[in-house]
């Protein structure tokens, strides 16, 4: 199942694609301070990325009956406090996804895949 059911009434149902949730998560991750980019989840994805742009790049969305499970794969700026940055990401992704989609977010895992060094001190 790649769609999640948000709500329904006698007229029909609202189905939300994982891609939609992924783009919101992706957008607010990239706007979070300290994040300098997303990273491939695995080798296949890194090859995939060369060929075609994918809304789910660096973001993985799953769900169970309790809510959404989001995994984020990111690159962080060297010389910043990573624990603060990842906390902010979790807060802002949870807030934005829940506000726009209306589904509870149960878990967000942030995978720091590497650091980008712009300046050495």
């Amino acid at each position: 199942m790649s769609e999640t059911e948000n709500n329904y009434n006698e007229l029909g149902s609202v189905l939300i694609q994982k891609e939609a949730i992924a783009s919101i998560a992706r957008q607010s991750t990239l706007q979070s301070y300290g994040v300098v980019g997303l990273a491939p989840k695995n080798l296949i994805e890194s090859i995939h990325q060369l060929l075609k742009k994918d809304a789910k790049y660096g973001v993985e969305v799953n769900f169970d009956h309790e809510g959404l499970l989001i995994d984020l794969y990111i690159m962080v700026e060297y010389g910043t406090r990573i624990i603060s940055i990842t906390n902010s990401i979790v807060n802002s992704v949870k807030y934005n996804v829940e506000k726009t989609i209306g589904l509870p977010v149960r878990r967000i895992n942030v995978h720091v895949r590497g650091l980008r060094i712009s300046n050495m001190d």
Partner: protein
Amino acid sequence: MSVVELTKLSPQERHKLVSLPVNGQGLKTLMEAGMIWLKTNQQIVNNLNVFPVPDGDTGTNMVLTMQAAFDEIEKSGDENIGQLSHTIARGALMGARGNSGVILSQIWRGFARALDDQPTMDVKLLAEALLEAKETAYKGVVRPVEGTILTVIKDIAAQAKVSAQRTTIFTEVLADIVEAAEASVERTPDLLPILKKAGVVDSGGKGLFCIFEGMWRFINGDALDKAVTEVMPLSEMNLEDTMESVEPGQDYEVVIDFSPESTFNLENYYDELSKIGTSIQVGEGDGIYRMHIHVPLDKRYLPIDHTMTQGTIQKVMMENLVAQMEGKKSDKHPKINLAQVKADETAVVAVSPGPGLSRIFASLGVAAIVQGGQTMNPSIKEVLASFENLPTDKVIILPNNKNIIMAAKEAASMTVKKVHVIPTISIPQGISAMFRFIPDAGLEENTESMIEAIDEVETGEITTATRSVEIDNVQVQKGQVIALYNGKLVTSTDNIDTATEELLIAAKTCDYERITLFYGEDMKLTHVNALADKIRSIYPDHEIEVHEGGQPHYQLIIAIE
């Protein structure tokens, strides 16, 4: 010398301290002044926080970051400004908290890099350092959002560059920077629509401005320990608590209601008052100002004389505090009897915003109380301290507020005790959970049944809007009474009774059995009883209870179950 000691210097002497070139100790002094002023304005900054997540902690995060940076240099006698700024940057990095804290640490990092190991700093170097600070701050994010602290440091850097070409005097450049920062903060709502919608300026930007303004105020000899322009709504003036801070010699309490003249300048008014006495508070509501001050015997008429020059006095109240204190000690806040836990029992810690609620929690078997609630989040340390000394290692925390759950979880992760946080987001949820609590049942068992109990109660809150805003399609004017049902805004109106009735309708009260009202510190019991009677006539089949909550800000907290 600390800033506190330095404030005894005359403005001329202060100017000399940062006269060119500025060395390490000069920067250290400025840092401390900026930090103190930010701390003074912390709550104002917190209240502005709507982006990226409206959790009201920007000011706190920035203060903690600045504090961490300053702690590193506090003992340092380093004259070399380059080396000292690297120490600041390292401290800021290690202590960075929240989004704005991380950005602040990047600003200091860039600043330090530009200074390298220069012994002193002139205006040219200051401009370069601020430019590098801005560059570094922008490098930390792929999609910079304008209308935030980033925009403010950008405008500061641009202004510093222009000013450094015009003059070589440090204080002149600093004055320009502060002015540019203020203008930049004012512009943030134009750049970030969400700010405009909420009717606020950016909180992080405001915080950064406060740091620079603090430096400037220090040089000018202005006070750093009180926010001059802060006027609170009348209902928030907490005159009770000022009793605890009576200083020897300040024997008289004077409260004056007055309507100010059109030329009234709050800042000057405050300054004059601070020469007369202590514990100064100024509140405003419906065009009336209320002033509160503690003064010594021989100065007890001065506040009246001074206020008469500023407007028309309507009412003066004067009390002898010494006599009042004697009487107060006996009857104020009867002692709260907390539950005594044994080694193998489970203990509950509840966060409570008022003495009445604390007593209710205690009577239900809570072993420790942490003071806190809306706009007064307890620190992780306070939560931790509340249960560290309990004689058991099984602890349950009831945060009773959405903004405190995180702090409670952090505290839970920092101890060796087994701590579970029940995610209660309101007082009624906390009380409902407490009803299920059994001291000698296990931690898991209690947690499970207490979590279940959360959903069995509906929460209503009645409070006063602190600013004009539109949320959930409800228009609210500052000063109006608003009703929140499970945290969602239901209605805005002009009196508490109507707000409560509309709230009960929105909460589908007919489907429930019992309504409990916890009234706040600025509600009169007679008013609550009249309201309870009214509710009884509308819902004759419901059980209606009234308890003293004593919480600030919220006139009523309502449990519907």
